[in-house]
């Protein structure tokens, strides 16, 4: 077992060294000056897209989450259907449905003035991602709110707090701590999932990588993209972990 472990670790180390040596060997200042800035602008596109859709999705998720918890059967079913659809189908199929599919209704949309918006791949991607992440975030929010024990509601009622006050001062702060980790996971999932916009001609990090590869046939373009994605995801994961430790320090014993 010890030998196996040492061998496997050795393979990783060797692979890492080989990769670095190969990247140094393949370092081409022309390619770096041509494609380096493009990669960075692609990275900025990815982060902007994810940032905006996560924010808009967070806003949209609030009514959906309350719809899910509503005692009104119709509202609850509607919200459930929305969440089930967006969580049950692949993001790429949703993106195609919006980007290619809405073209089927071009005449009607032109009449409503919506075509200017949906003609653009970036807008379609933003729209699809917002709807998708709203469904996931609604489930996170609902789970977090429902995880707060009943006694907290009763305690607040016993203190004579109004329902709105109860929600803002008692329920939400406790729910947010529960929701912190899944929210972090959702952001990471969106960063990774956003790579599919490259298929519909948005030049995010993945799109720039594909363009660079199709021009140079140099595999190192993919390696650099992988390094960039790994760095972002790992950085975000570590920041989130620190944040969580800081915010939950009063719960530690």
């Amino acid at each position, binding site marked *: 077992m010890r030998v196996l472990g040492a061998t496997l670790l050795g393979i990783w180390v060797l692979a890492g060294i080989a990769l670095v040596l190969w990247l140094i060997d393949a370092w081409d200042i022309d390619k770096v000056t041509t494609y380096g800035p493009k990669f960075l602008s692609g990275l900025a596109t990815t982060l902007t897209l994810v940032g905006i859709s996560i924010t808009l999705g967070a806003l949209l998720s609030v009514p959906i989450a309350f719809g899910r918890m509503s005692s009104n059967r119709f509202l609850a079913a509607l919200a459930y259907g929305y969440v089930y659809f967006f969580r049950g189908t692949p993001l790429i199929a949703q993106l195609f449905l919006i980007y290619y599919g809405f073209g089927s209704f071009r005449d009607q949309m032109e009449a409503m003035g919506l075509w200017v918006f949906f003609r653009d791949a970036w807008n379609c991607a933003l729209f699809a991602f917002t709807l998708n992440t709203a469904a996931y975030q609604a489930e996170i929010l609902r789970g977090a709110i429902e995880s707060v024990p009943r006694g907290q509601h009763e305690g607040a009622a016993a203190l004579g707090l109004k329902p709105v006050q109860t929600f803002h001062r008692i329920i939400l702060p406790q729910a947010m701590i529960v929701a912190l980790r899944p929210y972090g996971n959702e952001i990471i999932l969106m960063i990774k999932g956003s790579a599919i916009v490259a298929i519909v001609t948005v030049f995010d990090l993945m799109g720039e990588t594909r363009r660079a590869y199709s021009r140079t046939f140099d595999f190192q373009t*993919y390696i650099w993209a992988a390094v960039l*994605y790994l760095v972002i995801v790992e950085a975000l994961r570590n920041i989130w972990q620190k944040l969580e430790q800081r915010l939950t320090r009063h719960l530690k014993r």
Partner: protein
Amino acid sequence: MEPTATLGEQLYLLVSLFDPFCGPIGFLNLLPENSLLSCGDTGWGDEVARGFFVTITLAACTLPIGLIIGLFLALAQQTDIRSLRISANIYTTIFRGLPELLTIFMIYFGLQIAVREAALALGYDRGFDINSFVAGTVALSLVFSAYACEVLSSAFKAIPKGQYEAGYALGLRPGKTMRLLILPQLVRIALPGLGNLWMILIKDTALISVIGLGDTLRQTGIAAKVTKEAFFFYGIACLLFLSLAILSSVAFSRIETRVRRSGVNQ
């Protein structure tokens, strides 16, 4: 034609006897002959059904491979040998951190380059096409195993140390303790997490369409391009994926109640 493709064709012929869409008992046969989804040459029903079959096959091929690799990774993370733990952690960090699409492209193009180099080294001088089904299975197995490792690892942690000690006290060898005592409990604990991963896997198969595999999304995409009915066909693709999700969740809740029957619950 690559061997897997021909095997797939044969399998498809067999399965098409029970095809619920366009087989002898398929419900799409009820449609009039010139509708968009009818079977045969006039409609797209059989093409889409074929893609749906490819989606299911891809997910079903990935699942066992990913589970086995994931189990070994989780076992490696449980040991007290540091080099094994670090190796497993590097693997999971890489494949959980990379976008699935990037992994797929890297495996697809990387395998192509590797095969070409190997062929050159052996003296063949011609290009090889990597079967997109094989590349897709490899890429999805890598991703699935990294996530499965996480689920199984936390399930391992939920099994009390006393269970291992009980196995030891009964005189069972470590391998037998694992197989007879630990794994049955592990399955029960890990099942909900693995169910989630299966759902994610089904959705991830749609990404393989970008390297040219004729799955549900690609077949509906071709139909959409030819007929100019993009919303209709991508809507069909979404409904097909949705129906798979519903079927899976029904199946999983059945399996869970069945597995829980034998357990002593808190």
